[in-house]
């Protein structure tokens, strides 16, 4: 048997595996899990530095299904952003990877999601978006499209809350959309999100085969395949690899990320500048009114400071600071007491 291929930190793909999934066979979330594993493996992320965060839902169970060697935290419904924020502040070295569902993010969790973005907490936030509450058996979530039909026939009357559009409104520093079935696009986007320092929101349409994959659903495999409009061919060149020029000039945008990696965007049908926020909003709106799902890198701002940087926190984990660094000296303390007398 051939030795397994090792990544640049010397780990095999197996080191990024988790426990066996208990999701339904065919669930989009399972595909995303595989793409996450691939991205982490290829990127050579240190498992012990990874922190896997989630809320509650089928999607939120998935952090158990990848990188068993990383710490994970499956919190409460809709509140993963605050847990992630706290953990990031406590230890800036951690690579925060959050997985949430559309119910978890856009219904109960909308406020926290938005405030995390506003702070530009350094994390990757994946919305495994199936337009439904999988774990509670198929009610509409807030990302369900108006007119989408539930299994039992109910028609959704409300406009969807689009995590990407909301993120853009807030000036989120990294916004992308993808599809669980499109690893070719999703894996490089995931890598870029992980390399990005700041909040990276990835809305990944991920069909729920059990409750939302029927005719009339706008989040079914069939519907997405028919309505996806890819913005770019995305490729990711990690900082430890050399950049090869392989596209004709003018057709490609190259973005340098914080860690020195590069994201290369080869434009397809539409011409979109991912540094143009207003253009990005228009892009999504127009896609929606055409009934199309625009995927790819929607917006990226590498200049924005992330939260921990803005807070001037040390690079060392805060738990490594001892009494000497955290307590004022006896002299300072005595002076303080004197001033209170």
């Amino acid at each position, binding site marked *: 048997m051939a030795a397994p291929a090792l990544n640049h930190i010397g780990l095999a793909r197996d080191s990024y595996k988790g426990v066996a999934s208990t999701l339904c066979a065919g669930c989009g979330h399972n595909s995303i899990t595989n793409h996450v594993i691939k991205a982490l493996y290829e990127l050579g992320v240190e498992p012990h530095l990874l*922190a896997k965060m989630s809320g509650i839902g089928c999607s939120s169970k998935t952090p158990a299904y990848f990188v068993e060697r990383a*710490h994970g935290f499956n*919190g409460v419904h809709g509140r993963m952003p605050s*847990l992630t924020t706290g953990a990031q502040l406590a230890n800036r070295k951690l690579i925060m990877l959050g997985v949430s569902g559309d119910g978890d993010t856009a219904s109960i969790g909308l406020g926290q999601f938005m405030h995390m973005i506003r702070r530009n907490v350094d994390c990757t936030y994946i919305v495994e978006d199936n337009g439904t509450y999988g774990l509670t058996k198929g009610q509409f979530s807030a990302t369900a499209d108006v007119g989408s039909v539930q299994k039992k026939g109910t028609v959704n009357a409300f406009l969807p809350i689009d995590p990407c559009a909301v993120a853009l409104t807030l000036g989120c520093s990294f916004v992308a959309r993808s599809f669980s079935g499109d690893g070719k696009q999703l894996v490089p986007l995931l890598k870029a999100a992980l390399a990005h320092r700041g909040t990276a929101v990835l809305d990944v349409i991920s069909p729920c085969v059990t409750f939302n994959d029927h005719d009339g659903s706008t989040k079914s495999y069939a519907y997405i395949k028919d309505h996806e409009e890819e913005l770019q061919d995305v490729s990711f060149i990690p900082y430890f690899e050399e950049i090869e020029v392989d596209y004709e000039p003018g057709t490609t945008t190259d973005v340098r990320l914080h860690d020195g990696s590069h994201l290369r965007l080869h434009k397809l049908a539409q011409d979109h500048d991912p540094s143009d926020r207003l253009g990005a909003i228009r892009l999504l709106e127009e896609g929606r009114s055409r009934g199309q799902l625009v995927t790819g890198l929607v917006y990226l701002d590498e200049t924005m400071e992330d939260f921990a940087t803005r807070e001037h926190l*040390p690079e060392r984990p*805060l738990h490594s600071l001892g009494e000497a660094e*955290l307590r004022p000296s006896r002299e300072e*303390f005595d002076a303080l007491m004197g001033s*209170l007398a």
Partner: protein
Amino acid sequence: MLPTVNDLTFQAATVNGSGSQSANMVLTRAIFSLGIPVAPKNVFPSNIEGLPTWYQLRVTTQGYQARKGDPDVLVALNPATWRQDLEQVRPGAAVIHQHLYSTADARTDVDYFPVPFTKLAKTEIQNDTLRKQLTNLIYVGVVAGLLEVPFEAIQEGIRRTFPTKPGAWQANEDAARIGFKYWHENFSAHERRHVLRPLTGLTDSQILLEGNQAAALGCIMGGCTVAAWYPITPSSSVCENLAAYADRYRLDKATGERRIAIVQAEDELAALGMAIGAGWAGARAMTSTSGPGISLMAEFSGLAYYAEIPVVIFDIQRIGPSTGLPTRTSQGDLAFIYTLSHGDTKHLVLLPGTVAECYEFAQTAFDLADRFQTPVFVLSDLDLGMNLWMSPQLQYPERPFDRGKVLTKDDLDRLEGEWGRYQDVDGDAVTYRTLPGTEHARAAYFTRGSGHDELARYTESPEAYAANMDRLARKLETARAAMPAPVVETADSAQIGVIAFGSTDAAVVEAREDLREQGLEFSYLRVRALPLSPSLVDFVAAHERIYVIEQNRDGQLYDLIRLELPSQLVGRLRSIRHYDGRPVTAESLSRPLLELEAVPV
């Protein structure tokens, strides 16, 4: 009649937003600088400007810190409450008032000192922008005159009130002198009923500080590195003070690096979530809030209990239910917090009764949270937290942090990676954890609020669930012994005992001396933590009747104690409750106690 010396209650009735607060501080600091014990209480509205506010300053040689009902000296500067304020003073009180307020048909058993404050301010204060503010200093001068406070003390009070603004000293001094002069020119002939005289020995190494300030300093000394909060009265000043101390003690001026993160969250759910996330990742993390915020923290508190994550939560209690009276004090969250969250959740609760304990217990809280890997609540209240209290100087901590059972890379090497997050290897029901980021292939585990086994794996096994719940119950028992023990003061001959907690202490201490003078001795046990100490049983057993005194309607501590007692002792307990939002007075304890003592059980 000779005037009483160093024994009086002063009250200023003003309008909020008018700047009387600093005048009151000047007076307080001035008197304190004479070596005279003071006890200030601020009664303010849930409003920014224009509503009645009262400042009470008690002076006793005993150093009593409790509120007292009726003032001996009143400064009346609020026309809206003038009559009502007047009703409340003692017979013989000195009433300094705006000279335009009518005293016709008013009480005749008090001394009136009308002062034309507005006119004096207009004619004597030059500074237009500060006039409104400085008008208040005029009454400080008048009061100094009335009570024979030397003007140097007022000057000292000004310097101590504005230590960082020497530029403001002169203007304040001038304003105070207007009042001082006015007194001497108009009322000096008047017979005095109260005077203040410098003292020595009583305030040595005493300081004045607020409980929330003490708690914030405790967080600094306790090694807190992440704080997340959402503004709410009366808890805001915990984190605001923390931020101020952090600027002083946690900021590397050279690099700009901060050794603490203080986040104003978007609400209380997020605030506690951030603190829990940080606690999970190894930081000493806290949040602080009041009433409504506690309700909003219920779900996350249950997560931290069940997933066993250290976190410290300050609840500076105000009066509920619901929004209630946001600027009035209460001890009404006790029972709710003890079992905060659905299911069989139970928490560790610390109950500081003095500002020194606010400081000390803040540190203890971080140690207990790390040691028992669980939320630790610190229950203070508006009275303790937002009023200035006289206190012995705080002590520099002698012990290092107790970070609890954390396995490092080296530990894991030694164990060859064999460990279980929820395995009770030491028999104390407290298990080992690792921190995210620990560089070892077997360091990681998965944290969740759903069912888990000893290796932190997901399970729905009934047996695993029940075993884990039993261990959590045992952990609470381990913790019980580690909580701060009650403070007990027994009186040899006493047949009766009093149990109280928190800020009620000041009133109990005073009532105890009052009743002793009236020939009624009682022993006193002050509860300082939940779960309750087993020693409580001995205390109850040693006395025939026990009065549980607390500041809530439903007798929450009374109930909690009854549940812990052997049944034959339960009948000894009686409940005294005070719940109108004002800090309890000694009198409002001793009166019902005497009444109840007159009634056979």
